[in-house]
């Protein structure tokens, strides 16, 4: 039982964190990843891609109004959404793979929350100084200097936030046109609203909420924890080597940890990794960089804090040699994930190359199922949709294959040829008629197959359907 008489506090104030600048391998890796990911994010919408007249010349474009997704030479139509589904499954499997091998690497290196928070910390450090200066500023009075520094920082944050929200909308419209419209106040309301919301969230989450998002708001830490096992690599402290920690020159009876708190001071999550694995840790490995620097200075072996698996602890405590990192990464579980991931990837690429440039969907009109004509013929109605996914206008011939004798008519009494302009869809109502003496007229159901053939090429598309006759009932 708790011994204090005062009731425990239910709510806690946010503890400000002032991570110190750090140098090292993992910090460099984080810089590179930040550069590459932000670069891709900001630059992609500005890449041009010539698709000929009447089609957008933006390399990556989500055209919501035209219901198309353009990705360089690939154009995805709404009925090909399985490509997107496939990519999402690959993203999921990729996350399983990385998490089971390397723990929360997503959190530590590529999560937008981490990347933008890191960027905001960089700005903060640049304007207000490193840890000690920031701590002092935090405690100081709100004088002119403090206001000046704070306001400068907030303005730079805001600029980054606007650019972030701004970049997002360029994926949904022609970027140069939209930029001009945004600047001259002519863009659609939804564009401004999107920029506004993303600016606000970037500013608040990157500048103020920071680690609080990871700890309290984000569901990933819980989900990722479920994807890890005792072989997954996470950042950990070799306490069997470091303890008992202690300051001072006389190391008699002490471990390698000199209790300098360098690892604690650099942690953007504000935790002490020497307390063991914690759910707050995003495995950014900055504490590894910090400690390795200290180990170099004290002349000890690096790796007092290191990427370790749970199995390593028992193993190394028992005095066995270290298990190489690759042995943790390459194991059945990760290999199976890799295999599945590649399989779907190969499948999508194959699907991309064999997909037809013309598409056909036939929807039977079943209200009513059939119509009796005055001579006793039975007529069924179908709406057929022809997609011309080529980049030129095309003429299609509509046809029907069936063992029974049936006749096809198009609405409006045209012949069986239809024009479909480039990159468009045509909806055509089609009547199929069985004469009274056709077997199909009296049968319950007759299989038939619609096809369209592009005039001049041999491109064809099929779809099987059935014809409803008067049946037996």
């Amino acid at each position, binding site marked *: 039982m708790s011994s204090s008489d005062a009731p*425990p506090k*239910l*709510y806690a104030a946010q503890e400000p964190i002032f991570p110190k600048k750090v140098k090292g391998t993992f910090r460099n890796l984080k810089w590179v990843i930040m550069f590459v990911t932000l670069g891709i994010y900001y630059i992609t919408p500005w890449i041009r891609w010539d698709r000929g007249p009447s089609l957008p010349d933006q390399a990556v474009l989500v055209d919501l109004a035209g219901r198309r997704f353009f990705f360089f030479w690939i154009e995805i139509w709404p009925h090909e959404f399985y490509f997107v589904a496939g990519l999402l499954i690959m993203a999921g499997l990729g996350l399983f793979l990385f998490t089971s091998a390397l723990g929360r690497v997503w959190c530590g290196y590529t999560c937008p929350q981490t990347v933008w928070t890191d960027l905001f910390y960089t700005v903060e450090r640049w304007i207000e100084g490193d840890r000690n200066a920031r701590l002092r500023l935090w405690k100081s009075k709100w004088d002119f200097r403090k206001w000046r520094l704070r306001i400068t920082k907030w303005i730079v944050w805001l600029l980054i936030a606007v650019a972030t929200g701004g970049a997002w909308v360029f994926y949904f419209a022609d970027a140069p046109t939209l930029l001009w419209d945004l600047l001259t106040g002519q863009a659609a309301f939804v564009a401004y609203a999107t920029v506004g919301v993303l600016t606000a969230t970037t500013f608040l989450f990157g500048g103020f909420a920071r680690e609080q998002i990871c700890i*309290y708001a984000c569901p990933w830490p819980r989900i990722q924890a479920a994807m890890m096992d005792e072989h997954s690599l996470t950042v950990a402290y070799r306490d069997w080597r470091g303890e008992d920690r202690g300051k001072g020159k006389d190391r008699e009876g002490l471990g390698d940890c000199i209790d300098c708190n360098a690892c604690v001071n650099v942690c953007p999550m504000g935790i002490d990794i020497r307390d063991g694995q914690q759910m707050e840790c995003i495995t950014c490995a900055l504490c590894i960089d910090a400690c390795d620097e200290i180990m170099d200075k004290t002349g000890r072996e690096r790796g007092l804090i290191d990427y370790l698996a749970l199995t390593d602890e028992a193993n190394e405590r028992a005095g066995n040699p270290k298990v190489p990192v690759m042995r943790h990464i390459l194991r059945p579980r990760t290999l199976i994930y890799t295999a599945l991931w590649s399989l779907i990837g190969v499948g999508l690429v194959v699907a991309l190359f064999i997909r037809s440039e013309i598409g056909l969907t036939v929807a039977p009109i079943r*209200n*009513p199922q059939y*119509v009796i004509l*005055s001579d006793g013929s039975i*007529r069924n109605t179908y709406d057929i949709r022809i997609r011309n996914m080529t980049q030129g206008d095309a003429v299609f011939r509509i046809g029907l294959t069936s063992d029974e004798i049936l006749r096809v008519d198009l609405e*409006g009494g045209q012949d069986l040829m239809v024009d479909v302009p480039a990159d468009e869809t045509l909806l055509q109502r089609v009547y199929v008629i069985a004469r009274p003496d056709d077997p199909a007229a009296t049968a319950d159901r007759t299989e038939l197959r619609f096809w369209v053939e592009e005039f001049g090429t041999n491109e064809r598309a099929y779809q099987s359907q059935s014809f409803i006759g008067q049946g037996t009932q």
Partner: protein
Amino acid sequence: MTDQENSNLQPDDPETTGHSWDGIQEFNNPLPRWWLWCLYASIVWAVLYTVAYPAWPMISGATPGLLGYSTRAEVAEEIDRYDALNADLRTQLTEVNLAEVTQEAMPDLYNFSIQSGGATFATWCSQCHGRGANGVQASGYPSLLDDDWLWGGTVDDIHLTIAHGIRNEEDPDARWSEMTAFEGILSDEEISQVVNYVLAVSDQEADTSLAAAGETVFLDNCAACHGDDAMGDRYLGAPNLTDRIWLYGGSPEAIEETVRHSRFGVMPPWSGRLSEAEVRATAIYVHSRGGGE
């Protein structure tokens, strides 16, 4: 409750809340205070929202809200907007010669008519003729999809029918005809003869000797409207008796019922209730469903 202390507590563990049940204790990991403020902010937001927008249910309707927001008003506004956009098409539709409105010749007007005529049909016509316009066979609601028309199947004929209706007394221009009920005029034997004759001319199973006798009965009594060849007369709305389509059923019983008591299908006029553009669009829509002539 027990007095047993949890021996698994580690020195680094947070404080407990003091609750203990069966030796199980609860750590006190306080919620961040800003989270609490977010909750308060949401409550304030919720209250303001119900003041600003329609919310509280009252006896007749809900509180309107200070901002005067109304989804109905928004819909009305949208409808007005589209009405304004379509005004030209509607005027054009009332002036044009209906037969000229085709997909090839006037695609805009044609598509507008199919869409708006389809909506009008679904609202006003589908109750009798069915959502798919296939009517209710054998109950007197004709299918509009087939190639048989009592009063004509050109778009102008259809337009006239929709505008004035059939055999109604509200509209002097309604198409009108009335079949005689032959019970009491023809003997039972003559009725059975003429029924068999009708079965025979429509290629159905019939008693040949009765049918032969029925020809005379038919020519004397029925041919005036249905024609000597029983092919009907569109001017009178007299159905063709030789085809496979039966408005009230083609079984011997149904035909006998028709001969004895006659039929009198009524359709209301729509020109007073719908605008001329709506009537015309509906005519084009009906004409396009596969039966138009």
